[in-house]
């Protein structure tokens, strides 16, 4: 039924947000396909939480067009709300409740929103198991560690089997094992349930592993958009080639990010090459380059990026 599941889950055009005299978002434009996993990166204060809260319908935007699952979040009704999952950057509510108690309570609201395609809500005990809280199922929430509390937040975010989930720094406070579990969960949600996932994180390694696509937000606008590989080849010029020959270690920065032809020549010309290593720029290096470049462009007076150009169209 294509009419019920349009290919676009989220559409943001020229989104602007202003607090008093301060512009926090200055024209954010992007779309997400159904089932896509997108990581929103950016320095502290870039506007990630602001963007997510607007998409969740919690904050009212200053300008721009936004559609989440075909509906403007500012006008989203309860049926829309039932299709959205929310994990905020931090929660401290329901301290006196127990883990299973709270999940069971919240799950009840979603039952009438079940459809032939989507069985709602998630079975509570199964969900507790999936997020790895089985041992704490009867624990009082205020006694959970911060990582356990975060797992509960993730569980609450998906208890209604949402079609679109917003995670704001979901893995803050997770141990390596919990991080791995979270990656598996995200893959499970997007692969089996076709859930569309938008998450923010400061863990670039995690973004690279989880996300189909990465968006870098800086000073209120999007400065990069693509897969980790695309960003690396677009924004970083060099791949690093290291090798040993005639008993000496050599390092070469291959231009254009493509070291293949350099390595081919190298191997043809030297037959004693050992310990050959080709390292593409890591996402971290790429990210640093992107943010630095965006900020120096900003201080030079700003470059009109695609999004900014579209804004002037909208306002004209």
């Amino acid at each position, binding site marked *: 039924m294509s009419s019920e599941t349009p290919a676009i889950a989220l559409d943001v055009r020229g989104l602007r947000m202003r607090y008093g005299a301060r512009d926090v978002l200055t024209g954010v434009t992007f779309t997400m396909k159904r089932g896509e996993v997108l990581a929103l990166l950016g320095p502290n204060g870039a506007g990630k939480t602001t963007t997510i*809260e607007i998409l969740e319908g*919690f904050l009212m935007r200053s300008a721009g067009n936004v559609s989440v699952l075909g509906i403007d979040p500012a006008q989203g009704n309860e049926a829309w709300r039932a299709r959205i999952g929310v994990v905020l950057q931090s*929660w401290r509510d329901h301290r006196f409740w127990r883990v299973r108690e709270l999940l069971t309570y919240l799950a009840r609201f979603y039952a009438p929103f079940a459809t032939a395609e989507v069985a709602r809500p998630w079975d509570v005990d199964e969900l507790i198991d999936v997020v790895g809280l089985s041992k704490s199922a009867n624990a009082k929430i205020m006694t959970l560690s911060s990582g356990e509390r975060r797992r509960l937040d993730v569980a609450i975010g998906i208890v209604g089997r949402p079609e679109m989930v917003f995670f704001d720094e979901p893995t803050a406070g997770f141990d390596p094992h919990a991080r791995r579990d979270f990656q598996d969960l995200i893959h499970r949600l997007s692969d089996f349930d076709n859930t569309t996932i938008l998450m923010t994180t400061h863990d670039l390694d995690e973004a690279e592993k989880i996300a189909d696509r990465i968006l870098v937000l800086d000073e209120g606008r999007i400065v990069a958009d693509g897969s980790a590989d695309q960003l690396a080849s677009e924004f970083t010029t060099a791949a690093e080639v290291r090798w040993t020959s005639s008993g000496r270690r050599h390092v070469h920065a291959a231009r254009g990010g493509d070291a293949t032809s350099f390595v081919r020549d190298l191997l043809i010309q030297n037959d004693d090459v050992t310990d050959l290593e080709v390292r593409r720029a890591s996402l971290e290096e790429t990210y640093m380059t992107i943010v630095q470049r965006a900020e120096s462009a900003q201080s030079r007076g700003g470059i009109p990026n695609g999004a900014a150009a579209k804004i002037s169209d909208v306002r004209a």
Partner: protein
Amino acid sequence: MTTATALDTHRAAVLAGLSRGWIETRQSFTETAKVIVEAFFSLIYIAVLLMLRRKTMPGTDFSLAATVLPGLLCMSIIFGGIVGPSVSITAEREDGTLLRAKATPNGMLGYLVGKIVMVALSTLLKFVVILVAGIMLVNDVIVDARACLLLTLIFVVGMVATVPIGVALGSVMKSSLQAGLVPLTCGLLVIASGLFFPITVLPTWLQSFVQAFPVYWVGLGARSAMLPAQMVAAEIGGSWRMVEMFAVLGVWAAIGLVLAPVLLRRMARRQSGSAVAEVRARIRSKGY
């Protein structure tokens, strides 16, 4: 494909809200911090009755404790119905409970039902505890079928008149500090409403002023239920003024029932993670 009707989804939210009310009421008996708060006033009330047990009204042999008991019952309704919801709604806004409700489909409805159930059950419990203690400790109060019927009626009407006001106040108070003004104001009204001495000793302007609020009328109703008929002489106009009592409480109920949903919805609309984080930052830096 099945579509959820508004009836189904609201029913689910109301049922969830009932379970929420029950869970939170249960917590007030199992959480030490909550038990202390809940038991504190009841213990004070009972202590007052114990102290006044052997005293009589000056110039009569009528028990002083008997005139105080209806006042204590009135206080339990007022503090339970107005202070309870207003203080807890403000606190739950600051800790993100309301935002959680907003993130859930019909979550605000469930939250509100839960709050009403919790407030009604815990107030009823305190009311009954004071009543039973009063009946056991105090002579001269009437406990017949009429008294029981009237007390039940006054409890129900008192709750309907006060809980919506409490919800409305909780929605407009900007911080827990501001919400602290609610118990203060109620306390002053309690003092000025003649719950513990004949109101006719007060200046007339103050008498007229307090008659605009539910405290006076719930107190009058409780006295009319439990005190012997001749005690009516101490009341304004020498009458229990039942009709006026139900009329005034009815008006307050109507005002509250109109205002509470509007104000609660307006407050919920403003909830966001950033707003909650801002409050938390304020509490961290200023301590309130």
